[in-house]
């Protein structure tokens, strides 16, 4: 029984059904999130601002060192040093859902890739998987293995980039010095426990080399992004927008030479992963020891969601009916964690619990007013909400910003009506506790941790152990991302070995021929992941063309606004719980570093195509800030 709020129960065979006697099962009052935190009302905040001089607005616009356009509004009590209101604002519209309608579904692989200039390939594959499911096309084993390796390589680009280019500077001497000088003084004499792995004698030295632009760790991360990118290009042809992803596999030609060239690059991440884990262990423990209040920076309930990734070629059959089974055979287990407890690993339960709300978003409601719900059930008869992506229609309605009403281009996705967060760490957490990991020599799921046996390089062989954390906060997000680099490299290694075995047997087929049916209606969903976590594309085809296309990205979850129940989105909740530990009492000198650490720990990635609207809300032209300008106007 994984649903606590939605009136969904399971029969003896585990088949979900709507509880009898609930007149409007998906109505706002039929299923309210219980025990969730709530934002203060805008009226209450206005009143506090009027009556107290020490309570002030503090806006971060834009939030820098994130991908894409994010702004953040807070109201801060400088006397109590806490945040009273937090509002996450996606300032640009991602119009891919509108762009895709009426197109040949194969276009989606190339068009939706442009949603992100960091990890476009993940969208390509998710799209290909949605099409595969809709048309019934299963990739051959080598195609699945290469797809897994490609995804791992994208993460090996993404994680170092985030850790040492985007989030890392928040912990650098250049940032800690001005905001917390006493902490930097302490760091300079604090020995680094893992010096033999990362090479920094003190935490202060480590902080110096996290300095942006000049620090060795910053520059090394730039170099490692190149290594991962080169490896990716060897098997996918192009980065970040591959041309080799097709429904039914990959169009690349994979040879032993390609595999060996790729391995030379992959192997560099074994040592680098050891170093990353050691660095983020040392940084995290230093901050906790210096001031235990840092454990509250970015803290929120451990509510995590992930679809799982990296398929088992023996299990993946591209069907929705089989998703519950093939999902659990993935190298990263799908799952939903609520308040730190794993409640399901079943992709069907995960999928039917998803809803998207737009009360505070610049969109019109698509349900209600007597409109028929397009799909009352999923393809195997499980109940679906009218707010589910397969039922959602994107209806942009730009308007003025108003905290009481609408203030963001992001929607509010919820699972079982709860605010969930996505990230690399959800992957680790689910896999660690579910104990469904395939047998392999390198990674072990213990039920409370993941053991990672990283091969010898310049550094000796090393076993890392990521343990499910007791607190969930900004530091643990970054630490988990560092460990996830090793986890990812080892998954790539497992898949590389399996692919080499296939090649040795003469099995070089990477794709399955397919045709797009020109009759009838089909549905599919790609359950996949970005470096930042959860990624789904829900697709409906009608007579060979896209009738509906809905993308749900990790940052849609994480940057989501407050919902109709006043439940804040993950960034908002994390910032509301963040104490202001910066060493200044002068609001004019205040940099908001703790708030920024909280936000950046999620690795925000705001999909980056902007569409400019006329007053009537019709898209008239666009500004592309992503890597390629292939989008059509709607």
């Amino acid at each position, binding site marked *: 029984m994984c649903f606590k709020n939605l009136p969904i129960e399971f029969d003896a065979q585990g088949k979900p059904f709507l509880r009898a006697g609930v007149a409007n099962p998906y109505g706002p009052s039929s299923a309210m999130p219980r025990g969730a935190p709530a934002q203060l009302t805008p009226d209450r905040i206005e009143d506090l601002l009027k009556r107290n001089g020490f309570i002030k607005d503090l806006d971060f616009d834009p939030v820098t060192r994130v991908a894409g356009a994010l702004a953040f509004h807070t109201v801060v009590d400088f006397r109590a040093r806490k945040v009273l209101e937090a509002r996450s604002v996606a300032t640009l519209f991602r119009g891919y859902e509108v762009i895709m309608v009426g197109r040949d579904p194969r276009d989606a692989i190339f068009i939706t890739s442009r949603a992100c*200039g960091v990890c476009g390939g993940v969208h390509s594959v998710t799209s290909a998987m949605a099409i595969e499911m809709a048309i019934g096309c299963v990739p051959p084993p080598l195609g699945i293995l290469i797809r897994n390796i490609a995804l791992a390589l994208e993460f090996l680009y993404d994680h170092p980039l985030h850790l040492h280019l985007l989030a890392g500077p928040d912990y650098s001497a250049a940032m800690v010095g001005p905001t917390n000088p006493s902490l930097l003084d302490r760091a300079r004499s604090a020995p680094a426990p893992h010096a033999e792995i990362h090479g920094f004698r003190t935490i202060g030295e480590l902080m110096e080399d996290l300095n*942006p*632009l000049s620090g060795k760790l910053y520059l090394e991360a730039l170099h490692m*992004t190149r290594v991962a990118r080169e490896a990716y290009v060897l098997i996918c042809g192009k980065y970040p927008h591959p041309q080799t992803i097709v429904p039914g596999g990959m169009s690349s030609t994979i040879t032993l030479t390609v595999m060996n060239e790729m391995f030379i690059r992959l192997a560099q991440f074994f040592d680098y992963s050891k170093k990353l884990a050691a660095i983020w262990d040392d940084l995290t423990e230093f901050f906790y020891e210096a001031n235990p209040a840092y454990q509250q920076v970015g803290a929120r309930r451990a509510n995590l969601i992930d679809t799982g990734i990296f398929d088992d070629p023996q299990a993946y059959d591209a069907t929705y009916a089989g998703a519950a089974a093939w999902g659990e055979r993935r190298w990263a287990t799908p799952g939903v964690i609520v308040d730190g407890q794993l409640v399901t690993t079943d992709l069907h339960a995960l999928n039917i619990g998803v809803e998207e709300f737009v009360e505070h978003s610049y969109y019109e409601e698509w349900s209600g007013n007597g409109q028929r719900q397009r799909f009352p059930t999923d393809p195997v008869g499980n109940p679906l909400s009218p707010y589910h992506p397969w039922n959602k229609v994107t209806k942009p309605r730009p308007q003025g910003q108003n905290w009481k009403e609408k203030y963001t281009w992001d929607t509010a996705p919820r699972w079982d009506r709860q605010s969930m967060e996505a990230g690399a760490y959800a992957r680790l957490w689910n896999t660690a506790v579910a104990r469904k990991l395939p047998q392999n020599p390198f990674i072990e799921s213990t039920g409370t941790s993941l053991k990672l046996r990283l091969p010898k390089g310049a550094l000796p062989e090393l076993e890392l152990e990521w343990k499910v954390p007791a607190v969930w906060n900004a530091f643990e997000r970054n630490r988990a991302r560092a460990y996830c680099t090793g986890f990812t490299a080892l998954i790539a290694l497992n898949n590389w070995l399996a692919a080499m075995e296939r090649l040795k047997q003469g099995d070089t087929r990477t794709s399955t021929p397919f045709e797009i049916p020109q009759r009838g209606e089909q549905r599919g969903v790609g359950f996949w992941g970005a470096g930042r976590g959860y990624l789904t594309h829900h697709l409906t085809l009608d007579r060979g063309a896209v009738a509906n296309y809905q993308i749900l990205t990790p940052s849609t979850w994480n940057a989501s606004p407050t919902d109709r129940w006043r439940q804040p989105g993950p960034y908002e909740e994390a910032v509301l719980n963040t104490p202001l530990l910066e060493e200044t009492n002068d609001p004019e000198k205040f940099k908001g570093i703790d708030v920024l650490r909280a936000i950046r720990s999620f690795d925000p990635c705001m999909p980056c195509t902007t569409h400019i609207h006329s007053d009537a809300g019709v898209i008239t032209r*666009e500004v592309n800030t992503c890597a390629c300008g*292939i989008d059509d*106007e709607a």
Partner: protein
Amino acid sequence: MRVIVAGVGYRNLRDHSVGVTVADRLLDRRWASDVVVEDLSYNPIAVGQRLEDEPAGRRFTRAVVVGAVERGGRAPGAVTAYRWDGVLPSDEEIQRAVTEAVTGVIALDNTLVVTRHFGALPDDVVVIEVEPGVQEFGESFSEPVARVVDQVCELVVRLATDAEASARLPRAALGGMVSAPRAWSAG
């Protein structure tokens, strides 16, 4: 003396594709062995790494970089050419440029700032900017930009092959002569 001629921009984004189109057209020409033409419309960090890959002693000594840049204050189709003075913005701005570079933004200014900061650009950089008129999906240029594309190609050829011609250009900050009308311009 080795010269790289580089186009920077987006494909299929009408006037903002001018850098890419110029590079494509010039690739078809016959060049002396010391001139390399490339489309550098990708992550500027990767562009820098590509330039650094040239072996010692064969690093490029001059770059001629062309692309559309919306500066405002210029008519659509206006062409501005100058030798970049190489002055970088503040560290904060460079950090922003790096963030944009690694997260997928392709822009002429960004490419120059990032590659200069990391020491990948040659000292001698000639910039040719075209003021775009429209920014939307499509393969065709607006009329004012279409009118100058051939002229831009010829200008690039001259500045890539005639050191004296490029030396005659004024040195200017990014944006060239927008606020100080000293650089060569046409259109």
